[in-house]
């Protein structure tokens, strides 16, 4: 039922062929599913497309922010080189002792800024983890689509790559490192 039909029903429009009580169950089901059944591939494609767009846009957005952070790193690096150059130039000049202290202080602050920016860039790993989680959703939808297509005799969708156990993945860094290292050591003992 579209809005026109609903309005007609509410307003008691005489063009509506049957009163509500006389509509058969099959007709109601047909009415509800009429927009889904013929175009289910299109609907599935829309969902996949939307998820894909979300992952692509978040990747693009992350890269834009990373680009800004890299620009800051470059500027901080240039500032450090400039100060180091001046310090070297006046290394022997004892009258410039305060200036040397200022340079050393600004250089230390520059290092702290660089550390923070690198940490911020590392934190963007969440984007890849999130992307792979969404890809697993897409994979699952794709498999469901394949199953339904097989049932209905339609073509299959292509295989997608995603992290195998990505659904339980957290953003905690190096969570599995010790376990992985132990496994690698054991493997090397047994095989090499």
């Amino acid at each position, binding site marked *: 039922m579209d809005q026109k039909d609903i309005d007609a029903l509410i307003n008691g429009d005489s063009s509506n062929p049957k009163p509500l009580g006389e509509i058969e169950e099959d007709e109601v089901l047909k009415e509800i599913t009429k927009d889904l059944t013929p175009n289910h591939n299109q609907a599935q494609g829309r969902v996949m497309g939307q998820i894909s767009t979300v992952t692509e846009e978040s990747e693009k957005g992350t890269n834009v922010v990373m680009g800004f952070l890299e620009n800051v790193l470059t500027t901080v690096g240039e500032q450090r080189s400039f100060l180091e150059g001046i310090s070297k130039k006046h290394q022997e000049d004892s009258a410039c002792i305060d200036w040397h202290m200022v340079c050393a202080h600004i250089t230390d602050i520059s290092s702290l800024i660089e550390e923070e920016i690198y940490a911020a*860039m590392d934190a963007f790993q969440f984007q890849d983890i999130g992307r*792979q989680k969404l890809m697993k959703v897409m994979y699952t939808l794709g498999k469901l689509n394949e199953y339904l297509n097989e049932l209905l005799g339609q073509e299959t969708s292509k295989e997608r790559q995603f992290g195998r156990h990505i659904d339980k993945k957290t953003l905690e*860094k190096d969570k599995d490192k010790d376990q992985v290292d132990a496994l690698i050591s054991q*493997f090397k003992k047994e095989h090499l």
Partner: protein
Amino acid sequence: MKFLVVDDSSTMRRIIKNSLKRIGYEDVVDAENGREALENLNGIDIILTDWNMPEMDGLEFVKQVRTQNKTIPILMVTTNAAKDDIVEALKNGVNNYIVKPFTPETLKEKVETVLKG
């Protein structure tokens, strides 16, 4: 020392390249998948590859590399953390393994480990 970073995520490639730069490795080339990486193997000293990629995944890429080069160090950097996955990667010629998300310290440690042999 020339690095090849293979990952379908441009964000991850950038993070790894920046981390390598930070620990003193500036000569880094990258590829989006195994197929593209195979075309860029000339002059490479060490490979860092993801596992889950379109076109050609990391495991298939490692297998292909090992048919032509038995010694080049390969570090797999992936979300796959299951024991079976790690063992499968090692059996196919991966030298060491990093699970995402990781810290720059781990990347440094693992790179140094595989470079030492």
